């Protein structure tokens, strides 16, 4: 039935709403039929707000938990602002899951560099949950998280908890800070060369603003990581998530179905092109 109506959203209730940052909220939704089959870390749903429209929002929850769909939303446009303001018991429209995931299976046995910038930590959080749920399958795991200032650190308590784990390295850096900040100050790419890892046996997963990803990919390449082992989560305008509306094209890639997670060898050369 649903397969015939690829455009038709399913109504689901908002179960909870939690403020993360000044303009960022995490919503938990009923999974509906769409969410029953689970999702891959890195995938997204199209969420519809009544009368305003649909927007793609990445999963930010634990992929082993299917009773609730977790999405972290920053209120910036009309749809995301309304979505972020949704009260528990409100209904939203749901289509998904869509897109490719982080290379969790392919990365087994390797060291992982998980590099997030700003709200880019949200689409990477399911990958982190997956790694922690299956810790024995991965080598050394390092999370490098950069954001604007100490007040903009997403999932802060969780980051601190992860950092206390003996087998999970968490490095947080901010662009600028006041004197009460005792952590690192500086940009993410500058920290890449300071991390000890074997570039031959490392898979890097990067999500953040495009400029941050571009510089980070470049720092990873300089450190000797193969293009095929660097994965970025791309962002483009999306209307359908089906590969039909054409909006999300980036070169040959439809970001909605060939991505959002794409290996750097598919983006190389195009990422630095102006207005491509």
């Amino acid at each position, binding site marked *: 039935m649903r397969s*015939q*109506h*690829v*455009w*038709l*959203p*399913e*109504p689901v209730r908002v179960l909870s709403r939690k403020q993360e940052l000044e303009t960022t909220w995490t919503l938990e939704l009923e999974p509906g039929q769409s969410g029953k089959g689970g999702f891959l870390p890195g995938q997204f749903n199209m969420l*519809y707000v*009544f*009368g*305003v*429209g*649909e927007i793609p929002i990445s999963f930010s929850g634990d992929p082993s938990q299917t009773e609730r769909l977790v999405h972290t939303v920053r209120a*910036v*446009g009309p749809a995301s602002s309304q979505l972020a303001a949704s009260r528990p*018991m*409100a*209904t*939203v*429209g749901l289509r998904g899951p869509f897109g490719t995931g982080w290379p969790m299976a392919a990365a087994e046995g390797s060291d992982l560099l998980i590099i997030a910038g700003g709200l880019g930590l949200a689409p990477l959080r399911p990958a982190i949950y997956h790694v922690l749920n299956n810790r024995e399958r991965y080598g050394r795991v390092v999370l490098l998280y950069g954001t604007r200032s100490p007040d903009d650190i997403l999932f802060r308590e969780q980051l601190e908890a992860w950092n206390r784990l003996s087998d999970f390295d968490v490095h947080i850096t901010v662009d600028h800070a006041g004197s009460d900040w005792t952590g690192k100050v500086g940009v993410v790419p500058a920290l890449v060369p300071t991390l000890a890892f074997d570039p031959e046996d490392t898979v890097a997963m990067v999500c953040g603003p495009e400029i941050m990803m571009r510089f980070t990919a470049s720092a990873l390449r300089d450190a000797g990581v193969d293009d095929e082992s660097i994965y970025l989560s791309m*962002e*483009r*305008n999306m*209307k*359908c998530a*089906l*590969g*039909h*509306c*054409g*909006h999300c*094209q980036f*070169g*040959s890639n*439809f970001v909605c179905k060939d991505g959002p997670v794409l290996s750097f060898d598919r983006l190389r050369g195009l990422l630095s*092109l*102006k*207005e*491509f």
Partner: protein
Amino acid sequence: MDDHGVSSVITLDGLQCLLDALARRGYQVVGPRVRDQAIVYDELARVEDLPVGWTDEQDGGHYRLKQRGDHALFGYAVGPHSWKRFLHPPRVGLWQATVVNEDRLHFEPVRDDAPRYAFVGVRACELAAIAIQDRVLMDDNHADPHYRSRREQAFLVALNCSEAGGTCFCDSMNTGPDVKTGYDLVLTELLEEESHGFLIQAGSDEGADILSELPGTPATGAHHRAAREVVERTRSNMGRSMPQTAIPALLMDNLEHPRWDDVAERCLSCANCTMVCPTCFCTTVEDTSDLEGVTAESSRRWDSCFNADFSYIHGGSVRNSTRSRYRQWMTHKLATWVDQFGTSGCVGCGRCITWCPVGIDITEEVRAIQGDSSQGEQT
């Protein structure tokens, strides 16, 4: 050409019988008609509804109807319409959302009673375009239900071209002018001093069924020879040609070529090329709600990569300049399309050249980049 049985020769009366047979079978028959000084696709009941005796003069940014001086029914090239306006309509209602019990949403698909279309006079380039849109909108895990319902019911009466337009270049795209596959029936107009008829051949079982109902005479070797001469004459009259080179690599290796600046100075970013293109498939979604806030509707309409908000993400468009939009359109059409769908997105119909208000010629743009590149290689 096919293995669906015999070929016949029919007269104009036979053609009328075809239109009637299609209507009797419940098809909405659509074909070329003259309207507003252009040949467009519209409902068709009588042979006389066709653009009898008309032809078109086409060039970059130029389209004019002229009398031919004979009674040819299909003596012109393609006009501003393509069949995509029926298979992938400019606007389609997707679904309605209704608020029930104060806050619960209910989603209901908008009823989409697609007519069963019979297209009459589908040229080889247009069959190629339909085959391309099939790949885009049906050959996937997420087939578009609106396109699929129209497409699967459509009956295609194809046409071997007897006239090449001034902007035609199907021969160099290997899509025409002769029809090869993907049709139910195919016509070749045979117009001579003393006789006017059509060689008609079936390409499907349903086509063969209908053909068997038509009054006609068995086609002879002479008729087939005459039909081949028609398309060969058309082939030799192509107004344009696409350079025979590895175009995808040429364009992707020249993404910063100065020619993009050059074309950007001429391009008005008007989106005409994408509207008339028979393969351009991009759409946007519009959401509207009633004043009471009880129902909202989502609909889809054609969009264009030349529109400013096409590439909008949080606070700005990725492609602001005309240069970047033209580059996106042309590299998609001729290069990245091949990666995506295993075929070029261009069928050589020439519409984008004719209907460009400033006459930008996609074949000329390729040639310009190619010319500079090959000069570069020589030095």
